[in-house]
């Protein structure tokens, strides 16, 4: 249904070409590297394993933190969302914690967990928790009352109703939350690496900037961009695959 956008990709090539010419003509190499140099650095970084190693480190804490947030967010969201009393009871605590940007917790998390993986796991999980939790809450609230009543009269008990009625009903909303969380978590993870400068693609960028290795720095940015892009595409695909019953229009974004 969607054919390749030739014009768009030609435009990308054109912009890259113009950048190359501009950098060479005006000798801007000290502030912006030529795309050809970036490509070379990219190829070198990937083949030597430095870049891919850093990406692996980043992905590890990312996957763990996000996974934790998905599990906690869905369970908490379903339980809280299926009871009005719990919803009201937790409302002010949630409203209080939600607006605190996770990046602001990085200094605190460093004090508590140190500079390594546990700290990143925590801030990523914290950042990713809120969109998933809130969306699961909404999804659970929006579950059709009729389905609940049918399940109840059919003798399905509390936990069973949660798993077989509320959860599937909330799934489209949960998926939206996960998509929002996925990019937020990457942002927070890279920020934590940049601030601590120990390991991961964020700290690699910081080192390249300090060493004034601009092609290597830009290669890392491009890789991070591809990473974000790949995550977006993968999630959209997964959503379409697993949530096939939801209208295409809703999933198109």
């Amino acid at each position, binding site marked *: 249904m969607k054919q390749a956008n030739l014009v768009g*990709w030609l435009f990308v090539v054109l912009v890259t070409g113009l950048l190359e010419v501009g950098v060479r003509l005006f000798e801007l190499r000290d502030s*912006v590297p030529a795309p050809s140099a970036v490509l070379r650095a990219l190829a070198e970084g990937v083949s030597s394993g430095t870049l891919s190693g850093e990406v692996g480190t980043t992905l590890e804490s990312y996957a763990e933190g996000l996974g934790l947030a998905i599990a906690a967010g869905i369970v908490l969201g379903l339980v809280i969302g299926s009871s009005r009393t719990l919803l009201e009871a937790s409302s002010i605590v949630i409203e209080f914690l939600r*607006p605190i940007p996770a990046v602001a917790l990085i200094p605190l998390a460093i004090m508590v967990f140190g500079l390594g993986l546990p700290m990143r796991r925590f801030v990523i999980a914290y950042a990713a928790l809120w969109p998933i939790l809130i969306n699961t809450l909404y999804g659970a609230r929006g579950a059709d009352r009729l389905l609940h009543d049918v399940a109840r009269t059919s003798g399905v008990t509390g936990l069973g109703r949660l798993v077989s009625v509320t959860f599937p009903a909330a799934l489209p909303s949960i998926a939206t939350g996960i998509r929002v969380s996925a990019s937020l978590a990457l942002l927070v993870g890279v920020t934590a690496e940049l601030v601590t400068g120990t390991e991961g693609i964020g700290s690699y960028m910081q080192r390249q900037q300090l060493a004034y290795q601009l092609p290597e720095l830009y290669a890392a940015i491009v890789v991070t961009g591809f990473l974000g892009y790949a995550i977006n595409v993968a999630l959209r695909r997964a959503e379409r695959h697993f949530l096939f019953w939801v209208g295409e229009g809703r999933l198109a974004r």
Partner: protein
Amino acid sequence: MTAAFLNRVGRRLLGAVVFGAALGIWEAWARSEPSFLFPPVTAVLERAWQVWPTTDFLTSVAASLERLAAGYALGAGIGIAAGLLMGSLRAARRTLEPLVEFLRAVPPVAIVPAVIVVLGLGNGMRIAVIAFAVCFPVLVNTVEGVRAVAPETRDTAAMLHLGLAETIFRIYLPAALPSIVAGLRVALSIGVIMVVISEFVGASDGIGHYILFQQSQFNVPEMYGGILFLGLLGYVLNRLFLLVEDHLLSWHFRAAGEPTR
């Protein structure tokens, strides 16, 4: 005083009671087992009460707000302009789409080191990275809002021989406004996040710098105070935004039959 009303008040109170209880438990725990990293709530509030009104702190807040305002305005402006263009001209959309799709997938913090190389460690760098992050949610929502304009409306505009500029400003922009505003709201919280991130590197003022500095000095209650302030700021900004939104979109909510919030 119906039972339902009492019930509702009771539920509202429940939230406050749970919140108070959580703070109380934290307080009691922090007092019974004094821990350097988890100071009592009252100690944090006491320090906040002393620190927040000082000129030093307020100057930092002002610096952050200035960066946010400048970056937000710049990013939103670019996002709306590019979004209107891409939404109304198929050629522009096809041309720019792959580039935009890639750029918006880049976590905005990743461009910070590159922007530092070009713009140095000053305000320009901070404003640029905030604008970069703010731009994309606004752009995407603007494109979507414009594309959702009914074909009949488009045809009517064509029939009336409206020029491109007129079509954009008199038809697409108002029609896309609810969607644009939704994007602006998402962008606001991203903007706050980017302010903090941009102030983590080489800043001498701003709330992000304040939090990191207090951490480096092991002033734990002050650090908590900074985090708390940021949370409050985010909350207040969001509330203000909702007020403006209600005002700006009252016609839309009325037309859509939604109750004004």
